[in-house]
């Protein structure tokens, strides 16, 4: 699976409160509307700037805090194809793969906003076309890769009638 897109860069400790603020709690049953506020408390302009296929690149502990699955869902609805970060918070990590949004873990320091990336998910290879370097991500665990290939946990359960972890 190859993903190509332009980078939006964020720092460390971007919480699910930054991604889906509590003051929009009432929009949680209307995800396309909530997605108009995605990442608003980290970058108020992000929702209006992001394009289909773009890639979020961040520092440490992306997605910490609340378990709200709305956070990765509205990132996906906004068109983001993949998130790369130095590390991810656990619940966000799990939620993202469950909904079919791939995450890659690597040292992101050299990647800058606006760079064009080409990502080979299976090989965990991230090519920065703008700068001309290649990074290797930590391998995606086989079960998580299966979730992405199946199109998320719901499609996975429909396909196998259960969770197929081995």
């Amino acid at each position, binding site marked *: 699976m190859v993903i190509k897109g332009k980078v939006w860069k964020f720092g460390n*400790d971007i919480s699910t*409160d930054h991604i889906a603020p*509590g*003051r929009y*709690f009432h929009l949680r049953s209307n995800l396309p509307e909530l997605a108009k506020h995605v990442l608003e408390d980290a970058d108020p302009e992000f929702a209006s700037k992001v394009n289909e296929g773009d890639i979020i690149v961040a520092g440490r502990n992306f997605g910490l805090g609340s378990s709200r*699955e709305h956070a990765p869902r509205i990132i996906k609805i906004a068109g983001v194809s993949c998130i790369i970060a130095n590390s991810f918070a*656990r619940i966000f990590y*799990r939620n993202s793969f469950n909904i079919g949004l791939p995450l890659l873990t690597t040292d992101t320091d050299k990647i800058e906003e606006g760079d064009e990336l080409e990502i080979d998910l299976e090989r965990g290879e991230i090519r920065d076309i703008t700068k001309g370097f290649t990074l290797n991500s930590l391998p995606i665990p086989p079960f998580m890769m299966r979730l992405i290939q199946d199109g998320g946990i*719901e499609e996975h359960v429909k396909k196998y009638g*259960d969770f197929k972890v081995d």
Partner: protein
Amino acid sequence: MLNILPWMNGSRMNKTISEKIIGEHVGREVEAGEIVVADVDVAMVQDGTGPLSIQRLQKLNMERVFDPENTILFLDHAAPSPRKELSNSHKMLREFSKKTGAYLSEVGEGVCHQRLVEDWANPGYLMVGADSHTCTSGALGAFATGMGSTDVALAFALGKVWLKVPETFKFILKGELPEGVYSKDLILHIIQKIGADGATYKAMEFEGETIENLSMDSRFTITNMAIEAGAKTGIIPTDKDTKKYLEMRGRGERYREIKADSDADYERVFEIDVSELEPVISFPHTVDNVKKISEVDSIPLDQVYIGTCTNGRLEDLKVAAAILEGRRSNPETRLIVIPASMDVYKKALKEGLIEIFIEAGAAIQSPGCGPCVGVHMGVLGDGERVLSTQNRNFRGRMGNPEGFIYLGSPAMAAASAIEGKITDPRKYL
């Protein structure tokens, strides 16, 4: 419920508490790092995460629950509802409850995590909740962890989840907490020490004489905040106080000894002497941004909030009331007090605590999450500062990204309300 398999109590095993509990729910021995499918004892959603769970189940044509008594829908984050969209979410949860028999915890009954320890959590249970602070129940010797709406929706329907068995960090806590220093200060100290991502994916086991001497209310504060270090869960071995608590809640027969094997494999072991700790405050905008009270200059406060799943229990209200008795909150500082559950509220009324808060000028609200989540009640104005007993201080958390959230113990909150600025509670003890 589950049969005890021969290896579970075997002295030659080397299992952590998480490995033992998950193993019982998989039906075989498991090891940290494995991905497994485990049976679930309790699954819950709240009004912020539940509507999405139900939408997913409807889409999958799987609107059913594995065990109605142990499938719970809590109306607590936006309760009573402040607007029609949220009223419709509540309506959706009530209709799902009628259709499937899932238990509905109504508006005013209290915060999900407090209600879970009061009436559902048991030693050895595997619990999942669509709320990150589900780890609170770990103080009763359960493996309890937060997940997303879809994970918990599938747990509702199938009665199981997929899990990675976590590695464990053990925290051995020694010494007695000094006067004016509480379990809130202790867990903030630990989070500062290891960082907001210091225990990501790990289970945190807390043990030692300090923990053994803490009340159950104080223990819940510690496991509640395990997620603030990134952990999958926080767990405390069971003991006589766990048993007494379960007896007090009318289910003493559910007591079981839960502890790790003496030669369990831990990824890291921390030994902390708590006898030298002092009251601490977490500064905006990350929980691990912790400072000692002695290092803090005068910081004026517009609001103080005592409540939440972290520190809205009876013991917390008692500590705060002892400081506020016969005093008033500063005219420049609003004081909000919310008992974590209706049971806590009733006991606080009986003990005269609510009257003390009212005389101190507090606004008392009905049990629920209150201002912690930024949905309604006590939303900060631009540039305003709050000291709250809650667990999170991310930017925008309390409804306004231009607000500043400081976290501390109920004693510090009470002392700070009186002075209108962040104040060392030891002054009032």
